[in-house]
């Protein structure tokens, strides 16, 4: 008799168990492709251990999403909440929805481009990896596996739970999930407690070898609860007050991982060079919108092309490939700091204009993200049974700063000259802004 339960050993969560049906999904071509996609693009050029792939992250999200689901729904919900979702979560249906949550976690990002999201801008307008994932859930062999399950699994249920409602609304403004599906969507994609976020923070920090991303996921998950938002009377995922310190640790972990790993200046410049190389390498400079063609390409094909170009001095891609592979990457000559921005809000753009005019656009790079605070404001059930905002009950959460980065990069051949120019220009621009005589915009 064939084995009904399978397991893999995961460095973050220990054994992850799955059944024969889930094994079919895991063994499918789209899922196996994720073994060839780096989770953090070329971050391994900065943190050599960060070579992990999206495959193990997907398994991790399935595991965490299941733990959250079981924590929330293994006991009867409070009456006021049960009344709102009773038509969708009868005891008989709960097993189906647990299955949906597991699959949504597993397949939540089955359509990434090579090097994950570093080159997303090279997709045609209106396309992103989420849309490619959805196309695959509807049309690839994954859809056939889902539909063949007894009872039949509707791929649209998986999509409703796996596609972050915030991002989905930006693409499709007519979408309106039921309160039940909104809760399940939050389990997988939620900004604060989503399984995706919990897994990637733990996994990325472990592989990068940094301590910043660590927090106590078990305490956090054990404190999760459903409650009614007193502001608008809707159901929400919240936290028992006893677990507030684990949420504080998660939010600080997120802040530090963003500032120290995801937005490390050299990591960001590698993303820039990767995008430049892929743009020059791909037919027409873009990825196709057709998921069938997207999944034919992985990091492996792109890296082989890059190595060939780096070895061939006659290749038109030689210089671009060398930037990434021979560590001839652009160097940071300016990093935005909040005190500069508060003196002159347009400082990054103003400085970039001047330095690009002086040295030429092709020798200078610009990178700007944020400011973005994400959402730290979630609901907390206090000891007296009341419901409060997290920013009322936690001074730490109220003061986690938004993330903003701004870099100006220069070709290594002009690094010193560009840095001296930037320092002098910065001094002039900040002095002028203090006088407030020059219109800025």
């Amino acid at each position: 008799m064939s084995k009904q339960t399978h397991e893999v050993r995961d460095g973050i969560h220990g054994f992850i168990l799955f059944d024969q049906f889930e094994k079919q999904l895991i063994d499918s071509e789209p899922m196996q492709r994720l073994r060839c996609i780096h989770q953090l693009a070329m971050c391994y050029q900065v943190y050599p251990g960060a070579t992990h792939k999206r495959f193990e992250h997907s398994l991790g999200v399935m595991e965490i999403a299941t733990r959250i689901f079981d924590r929330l729904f293994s006991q009867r919900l409070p009456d006021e909440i049960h009344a709102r979702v009773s038509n969708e979560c009868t005891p008989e249906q709960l097993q189906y929805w647990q299955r949906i949550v597991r699959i949504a976690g597993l397949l939540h990002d089955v359509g990434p481009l090579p090097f994950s999201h570093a080159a997303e801008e090279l997709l045609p307008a209106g396309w992103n990896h989420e849309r490619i994932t959805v196309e695959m859930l509807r049309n690839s062999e994954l859809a056939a596996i889902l539909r063949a399950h007894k009872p039949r699994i509707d791929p649209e249920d998986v999509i409703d739970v796996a596609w972050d409602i915030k991002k989905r609304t930006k693409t499709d403004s007519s979408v309106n999930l039921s309160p039940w599906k909104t809760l399940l969507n939050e389990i997988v994609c939620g900004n604060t407690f989503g399984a995706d976020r919990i897994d990637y923070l733990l996994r990325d920090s472990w592989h990068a070898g940094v301590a910043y991303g660590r927090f106590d996921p078990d305490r956090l998950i054990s404190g999760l609860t459903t409650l009614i938002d007193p502001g608008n009377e809707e159901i929400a995922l919240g936290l028992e007050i006893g677990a507030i310190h684990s949420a504080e640790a998660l939010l600080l972990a997120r802040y530090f991982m963003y500032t120290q790993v995801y937005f490390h200046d050299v990591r960001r410049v590698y993303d820039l060079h990767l995008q430049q190389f892929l743009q020059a390498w791909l037919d027409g400079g873009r990825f196709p919108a057709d998921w069938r063609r997207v999944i034919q390409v992985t990091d492996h094909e792109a890296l082989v092309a890059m190595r060939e170009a780096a070895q061939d001095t006659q290749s038109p891609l030689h210089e671009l490939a060398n930037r990434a592979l021979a560590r001839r990457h652009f160097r940071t000559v300016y990093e935005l700091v909040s005190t500069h921005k508060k003196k002159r809000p347009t400082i990054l753009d103003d400085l970039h204009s001047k330095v690009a005019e002086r040295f030429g656009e092709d020798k200078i790079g610009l990178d700007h993200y944020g400011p973005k605070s994400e959402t730290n404001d979630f609901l907390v059930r206090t000891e007296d049974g009341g419901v409060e905002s997290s920013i009322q009950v936690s001074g730490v959460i109220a003061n986690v700063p938004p993330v903003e980065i701004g870099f100006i990069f220069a070709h290594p051949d002009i690094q010193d000259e560009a840095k001296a120019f930037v320092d002098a220009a910065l001094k002039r621009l900040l002095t002028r802004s203090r006088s407030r005589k020059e219109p800025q915009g």
Partner: protein
Amino acid sequence: MNFKSHIIILAVIESLRKRGSWTGKTHVQKALSILRDSGKTTVPFHFVLYKHGPYSFELESELEQMQSYGAVAIDPNPEGYGVTLKPAKMAKYLREVESLSDEERQAIDEICTFVGARNVADLERLATASWIRCQESVSRSTDVAKRLHALKPHIPIAEAEKADREVYSWLAATK
């Protein structure tokens, strides 16, 4: 840097505060959504129907931008829910580089008078009813209420009708 958007947000915050509102993010979001529906002035933000009614991701990110250079500050709401917004030091800078017409200011004052004292639940109902009328072109009050109830099943039909009547009166009066 989109200073025109910022001066509009600043004017809404100042007008709400002048009217004694606790000036949460929801007040600013829903005020500008209803103002856009009214057509009284150009509101340079794209809105979508999100979890809690009309919402602009652009407006949210411009607000973060204003915080980052110190035009707006955010404090926990002393009344115990969400955050409260207030002008900060660099609001002066913003007023120097951008301005609003008298018509724009008047339109902002009118919507802030309408929404300033409302709680979050009311704001969501009013803004969603306004959206259904103006963006989905539903004109009969019973149909607006039905749609609002379908979107938010916990809002009884009678409450939905009340919200529609209120916002419709305001929209009609400001024409």
